[in-house]
Every structure is written in structure tokens, then in C-alpha cells.
């Protein structure tokens, strides 16, 4: 017991609650990871028509002010992209293959675009420290039958709802993932934000599993030639490499 008390003292000293630690046994109140027992096998490729569209293909019903701001941004920055994390909508809109990791209390969703595009979806029903706003926002999930529902708030204004429309404190995402067959998932995404949108907006996108694909070690900043210039304007760097 002395050892346990010493641990408790350390935790208290570190500002951590011992009651949280004691009660941290995984609760499946929020759902059941065994609904999709092998979802982690392989990768899930977005089925999209078109190429090179990113979030610019998402046509939200915008307020006049947001639409005007968007038009100005798109004109200035049309073809450029930094390597900052793009948030949940950006991950979905960019269409890179996804990798799902299911743990008892959390689902981790990684994008093949960049090793830093990682989403944490809390499934354990416990209160979590919501320190945002953050790039990926604060996501909690639960199951409705066989459908995984993810509710996201607290998105940083550093990420966009669609190209040229930053997220705000009132941005709210609902994702509903349904496994239609062992190798096909249908996503319905609903985006709402009364600060910039006149109505909620939904899209569907399906994902097809490639069982033999592995997530690769990707870092977007490795060689991005499409970053905006120092004034925030569009730039494609066409300086040839030297070797």
C-alpha cells in the first residue's frame, strides 16, 4: 500500500486526479469496438469523382459576408496549400486513404496525407479535458446500432470548413459511418455553423477498403512546392532541385 500511496502522492503532485485513474477502466458506454472487428485491416480509400479539388468542392450555403470573404481568398490563394493540419473536413475533402485504429476507449483516424493529420475520437463516455480549439477539434463518438456517429466541436479557426471559410466557435460536425459491406463504408457528413452558413449542409462519401494497403510514413512539409508565399498569396515554386 505504501507504494500505491506514493503513486497517488505523485499523481496529486502532478495535478492529476487519483479518482480518474482509479475509474479509468475502459467503459464501453459509448459503444462497442467489436462492432467492426477488423476495421483496422488495410486502408479505406475515398471514392471521389474528379482530381485536385480538395475542400473547394464543398459548396456550402454561406452567408453573404462569408461568401464574399471566401471569393477573395480563393482568388488570392487558389492553388496553394500549406502543410498545416486541415482538420476533419479537410481530411475528408482531400480524399486521402484513412487508417482506423480501434481501442476500447478511443478511435484513432489517421490520414495517409500526413503523419500529423490524426484524429482522436473518444468513445468511453468519460469527460475529457477539452483544451481547444484545436486543428482536429474535440470529437466524441458513439454507436447507433452498427453506425458510428462522431460529434465534433471546438475547431480552430486555423482550419477551414471549405476553402476560404475558416471554422468558428459555432462550427459543428456530425459524421455517420455505416459499414455497407465488409469492404465498404458510407460516410454522411453534416456541417453546420450559424456564424457563416445559412443552413446545415450534408454530403455523402463512400470508402472502399484495400486490404493490402499499409499506411505510409508521410510528412507533408518534406517538399511542399505549393505553400503560399510570405504575403499569403498563391505560389508554385518552380525552382529546380540542384541534385
Amino acid at each position: 500500500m505504501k507504494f500505491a500511496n506514493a503513486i497517488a502522492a505523485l499523481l496529486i503532485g502532478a495535478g492529476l486526479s487519483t479518482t480518474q485513474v482509479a475509474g479509468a477502466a475502459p467503459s464501453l458506454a459509448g459503444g462497442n469496438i467489436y462492432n467492426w472487428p477488423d476495421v483496422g485491416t488495410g486502408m479505406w480509400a475515398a471514392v471521389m469523382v474528379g482530381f485536385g479539388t480538395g475542400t473547394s468542392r464543398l459548396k456550402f450555403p454561406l452567408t453573404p459576408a462569408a461568401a464574399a470573404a471566401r471569393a477573395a481568398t480563393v482568388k488570392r490563394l487558389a492553388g496553394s496549400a500549406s502543410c498545416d493540419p486541415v482538420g476533419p473536413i479537410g481530411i475528408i475533402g482531400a480524399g486521402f486513404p484513412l487508417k482506423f485504429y480501434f481501442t476500447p476507449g478511443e478511435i484513432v483516424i489517421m490520414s495517409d496525407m500526413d503523419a500529423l493529420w490524426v484524429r482522436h475520437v473518444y468513445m468511453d463516455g468519460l469527460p475529457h479535458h477539452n483544451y481547444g480549439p484545436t486543428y482536429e477539434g474535440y470529437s466524441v463518438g458513439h454507436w447507433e446500432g452498427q453506425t458510428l456517429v462522431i460529434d465534433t466541436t471546438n475547431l480552430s479557426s486555423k482550419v477551414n470548413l471549405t476553402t476560404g471559410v475558416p471554422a468558428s466557435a459555432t462550427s459543428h460536425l456530425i459524421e455517420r459511418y455505416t459499414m455497407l459491406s465488409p469492404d465498404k463504408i458510407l460516410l454522411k457528413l453534416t456541417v453546420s455553423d450559424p456564424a457563416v452558413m445559412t443552413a446545415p449542409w450534408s454530403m455523402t462519401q463512400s470508402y472502399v477498403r484495400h486490404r493490402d494497403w499499409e499506411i505510409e510514413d508521410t510528412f507533408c512539409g518534406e517538399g511542399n512546392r505549393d505553400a503560399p508565399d510570405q504575403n499569403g498569396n498563391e505560389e508554385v515554386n518552380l525552382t529546380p532541385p540542384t541534385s
Partner: protein
Amino acid sequence: MSRYAKFHSAILLVGALTLTAQAHHSFAAFDKTKTDTLAGTVKFFEFTNPHVWIWLSVPGTGPNTGLYGFESGGPSQYDRMGISRSTFAPGTEVTITYHPMRDGRKGGQLLTAKFANGDVLDIMKQVKIFSNGEVQ
């Protein structure tokens, strides 16, 4: 449903199953209304994230000669198409089709690459078409 509509639906379905497009950005810097062709030799192949770049040396002294840079998909996308760093090793002869830069600079968005042995990489469809007609 008319026969044409059925046919059209089938095409769309096949397209939907095979096109798993992905994009880091909008590719708006390229003029999608134009498709140009250039033949040359690979000088550099940047097999890096977020986009692969192929630098093509086009011989001659005319206006459409010199060093061109072509942007394409991501390395992981290439890897899954069976393309590696050696595919576009410097010195490789290749004929490229591309959407040119809107601003007129020497570069564009890579569409297809045809090698001396007749194999074609179709980046938009994400397939490799061998010279005997087989598709990978």
C-alpha cells in the same frame, strides 16, 4: 431506363469504383482546358511529400525546350501504383502529357507518362497500361 442511360450508369459506377482521387490542394494553378505533350529525359525525380515532381529536360533550342517541372500525386499514391524512385530515374526517356501552368512558366500537372517500351502511366486513372494493352 434507356439503354444509353444504363450504359452511362455503368460507366459512372466503374469510374466511381476506380477513381480514388486525392488532393493536397486545388490544382487551380494549372489550366485544365489545355493538354500539352512534351518528350524528353528525366533530369530529377522528387519522390517527396506532399507531391511527386518530375523534372523533364526537353532538348532543342525552340520555345518549348529546356527544363520543365511537373507536379503529380503523392508518393504513397505512386507506391500503390507500383511506381518507385527508380521508375523515373534520371536519364529515363519519357513522353508526358500535362495541363500547363496558367502563368506560362515551364511546368504543369502531370496527366500521363509514356515510356520507351510503350508502357503508359495514367495518373488521373491511377493505372499502369502496359504496351500489350494490359491494365494494372
